[in-house]
């Protein structure tokens, strides 16, 4: 993607520290994506050999191509080689050997032009763009798998793909969407916008942030490579005896998902610390934009839930390679252990996917209603409530599994309780609409679409929380329709709202609004026309992930399939609009096209290096629309001494070690 949106980086006046200067190397020796690829290839070969070598000394391993150790070690060392090739280890190695570490702003990776997007860049704005393009690519890839699934479901009898390919497609689609889309908003918008929204010139841990991005292509490619190993036949959930029984495609699944777990831990870690520690003077918790609240809540879920996923994936790998027996009941393990670990991550995961959507729409509606956000504290409380409750609902995925029947009323209660904080998000929206002056811009349309879709998704979720009703609905297309309404209808619509709203900010480029409206209406209509009938399909008894279904459901399945293709066409309209506007037309957008009070809109588009000329001092909340006499959101050029007064110790006072 040809996106050079920033003027050439101005070198710092002081230049490089004398000790940190390095002789300029030819471009092909400088760490970038090509050295990463080379490192990955070398790593894979070494790991594969090592696996075979270790395996040959280990009597219990099947010594043949059905052995998993070479594959897993190959993948792991390929990842190490990949990030080593990117230069991730350079600074730590310098530190270990006592050599000076270059100041990150002046690092060679901050080079200008397109090349910086293919490097381990420490600039949060570069990482944001990398994430944005990456996420759109991942989303479209996984979306193509969905098209293939629906193509197969056109007929209950005739098969386009063989059933093994079909099961592979289902697994690839589900896993790719669930694991990679967890960073869909935190990655691009979180990394790019959160520092600007809180008035910071930088993030807390730029290396961790950049690493979190560079793990995503590795995870994506590893998951994709599963097709070469025969795929994996167990969907995105990877329930244990099946994932232990399956072939090496399952190794790709476990390594990729575990890797992505690490990536989202790192991404969330950086966001949390940045929000806590790097807020500008005057950016009190009560002035934090709703989007930042949602990023914070999402990041907490990421940092705390994903380690459990990494643990679960690790156990799958050890069960498959060194023959532990975590999930084998004959040897003292239990398949329920996996289900518990997976869903302890898996349910927070679905809120990792939902909360950013709440954040984006809550951020956008006050701008286009020209009113303050109704019940700011309520909205923040709603997000915190969802965050906390989401750790206590995981067993509702296991209502039929035979696990802990005595706990069912409890999990039924906690699951239903979560609709209270979710309802607050609707209260906030409805209050904001009251007597508003609603402007139907493209971002606003997508935000409205999100509210409409998530309403259906949320209410169908209440049906699923009731154990008797869930008995019929669980594992059927009803569930499938439900979570597509919350994730696709919620998150993806909100993401689109965010793209149309913030792309002018991030790239300084206008997206075509007419095509945007066509995109919205096609996507909204075909989304509903795809997934609404699936509730009926599910209630009529069609289980998920089947490739043969009752012949009397063919008409409705065909309807759904054709709608799904049209939905895919609508996404294609978006891609064309995106590529056309950013690569070909490149119509400049510099000001504040939405007349937003958000702090991010008070600086140039795209923001200059360092975001702000001076650390801004925040004077009021971001949603003070229609408030006569409201102070501007921030003083971008504060008088001397104001910033100094904002931190406890003047730089002379020694901080306690």
């Amino acid at each position, binding site marked *: 993607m040809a996106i050079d949106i920033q003027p050439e980086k101005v070198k710092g006046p002081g230049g490089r520290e004398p000790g940190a200067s390095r002789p300029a190397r030819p471009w092909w020796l400088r760490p970038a994506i090509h050295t990463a690829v080379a490192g990955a290839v070398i790593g894979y070969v070494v790991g594969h050999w090592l696996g075979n070598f270790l395996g040959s000394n280990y009597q*219990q391993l099947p010594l043949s191509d059905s052995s998993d150790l070479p594959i897993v070690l190959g993948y792991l060392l390929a990842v190490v080689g990949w990030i080593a090739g990117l230069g991730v280890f350079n600074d730590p190695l310098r*530190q*270990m*050997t*006592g050599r000076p570490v270059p100041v990150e702003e002046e690092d060679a990776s901050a080079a200008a032009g397109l090349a910086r997007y293919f490097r381990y860049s420490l600039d949060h704005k570069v990482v944001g763009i990398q994430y944005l393009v990456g996420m759109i690519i991942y989303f479209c890839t996984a979306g193509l798998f969905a098209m293939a699934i629906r193509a197969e479901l056109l007929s209950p009898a005739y098969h386009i793909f063989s059933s093994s390919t079909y099961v592979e497609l289902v697994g690839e689609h589900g896993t790719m969407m669930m694991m990679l889309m967890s960073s869909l908003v935190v990655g691009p918008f979180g990394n790019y916008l959160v520092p600007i929204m809180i008035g*910071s010139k*930088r993030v*807390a*841990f730029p290396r961790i942030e950049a690493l979190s991005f560079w793990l995503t292509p590795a995870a994506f490619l590893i998951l994709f490579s599963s097709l070469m190993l025969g795929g994996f036949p167990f969907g995105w959930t990877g329930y244990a005896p099946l994932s232990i029984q399956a072939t090496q495609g399952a190794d790709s699944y476990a390594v990729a998902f575990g890797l992505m777990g690490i990536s989202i*831990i790192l991404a969330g*870690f950086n966001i*949390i*610390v*940045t929000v*806590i*520690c*790097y807020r500008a003077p005057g950016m009190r918790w009560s002035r934090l934009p709703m989007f930042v609240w949602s990023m914070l809540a999402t990041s907490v879920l990421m*940092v*705390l839930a*994903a*380690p*459990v996923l*990494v*643990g679960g994936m*690790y*156990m799958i790998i*050890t*069960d498959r390679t*060194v*023959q*532990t*027996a*975590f999930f*084998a*009941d*004959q*040897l*003292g*393990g*239990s398949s*329920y*252990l996996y289900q*518990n*670990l997976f869903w302890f991550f898996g349910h927070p995961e679905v809120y990792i996917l939902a909360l950013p959507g709440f954040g984006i729409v809550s951020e956008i509606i006050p701008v286009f209603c020209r009113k303050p956000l109704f019940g700011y504290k309520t909205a923040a409380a709603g997000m915190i409530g969802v965050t906390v409750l989401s750790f206590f609902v995981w067993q509702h995925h296991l209502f039929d599994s035979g696990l802990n029947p005595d706990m069912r009323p409890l999990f039924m209660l906690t699951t239903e309780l979560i609709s209270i904080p979710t309802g607050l998000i609707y209260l906030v929206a409805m209050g904001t609409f009251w007597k508003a002056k609603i402007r139907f811009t493209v971002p606003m349309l997508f935000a409205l679409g999100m509210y409409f879709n998530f309403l259906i998704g949320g209410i169908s979720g209440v049906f699923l929380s009731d154990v008797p009703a869930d008995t019929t609905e669980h594992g059927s297309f009803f569930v499938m329709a439900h979570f597509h309404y919350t994730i696709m209808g919620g998150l993806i619509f909100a993401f689109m709202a965010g793209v149309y709203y913030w792309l002018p900010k991030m790239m300084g480029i206008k997206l075509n609004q007419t095509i945007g409206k066509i995109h919205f209406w096609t996507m909204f209509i075909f989304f509903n026309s795809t997934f609404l009938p699936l509730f009926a399909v599910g209630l009529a008894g069609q289980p998920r992930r089947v490739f043969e279904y009752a012949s009397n459901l063919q008409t409705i399945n065909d309807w759904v399939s054709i709608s799904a293709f049209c939905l895919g066409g609508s996404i294609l309209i978006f891609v064309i609009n995106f590529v056309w506007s950013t690569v070909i037309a490149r119509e400049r957008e510099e000001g504040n096209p939405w007349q937003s009070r958000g702090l991010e809109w008070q600086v140039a588009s795209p923001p200059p290096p360092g975001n702000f000329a*001076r*650390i801004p001092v925040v004077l009021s909340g971001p949603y003070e629309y229609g408030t006569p006499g409201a102070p501007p959101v921030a003083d971008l050029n504060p008088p*001397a*001494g104001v*910033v*100094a007064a*904002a*931190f*406890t110790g*003047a*730089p*002379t006072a*020694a*901080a*306690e*070690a």
Partner: protein
Amino acid sequence: MTQTSAEPAGLSPEAEEAGFYHEAALNATWTGARLAMGALSFGFGAFVFAYFYLRSLNSHGRWYPSTLTGPHLWAGTLIMGLIVVSAAVQTAVLQRIKAGHKTAWQRGALVALVLGLAAVGLQIWELLNLPFFPGAAGFASVFTGFYPVYLVIALMAMIWLEMLIMRCRPIAEISFVEQPPTFVEAFAVQRFQAALSAFTVVWNYLAATAVVAWVLFYLVH
């Protein structure tokens, strides 16, 4: 940035910002260490959950069959002891560097590093010489699953300690006694100190984890 600390009142905008982000970085180190411990707790929690879950299920009576030879108590105790002593030494010499004695910390930290690496090495040896097969029982699985993870995290902590030792070297001993004359030096010292206290917290946390794991895996199973 060559202003001296003698002019705190009329800070230039650059110095103001440098000071602001310096303090933010110190806070970030503190916050990050706590957050990392939270994430690690959930990661270890997966294994603790597995431990208690499989133990309570005792599927096919094979959580810890009577015929299973447990891991070597001496090895586990030694590994745990090395880590705890390493953490204790490091914590003790932290007080020395706070009191201004850089070399005392350097020596103690080196000891802590060697002890920690010894624990890591011994742990690798133990895993390569287990008296049971990884899939022999639920206990055996959790044991062989948990310790490699712990091992990697402990190794990373030791790499961190080594970095701190290297970072400490160029700092003048006097800087730990009194405020250095320039911001650049003062910031370097304070960031080092912040990183050191963050490391201490994390390493003590890992030592506590080692004790808990030792109790679970060697004493009570």
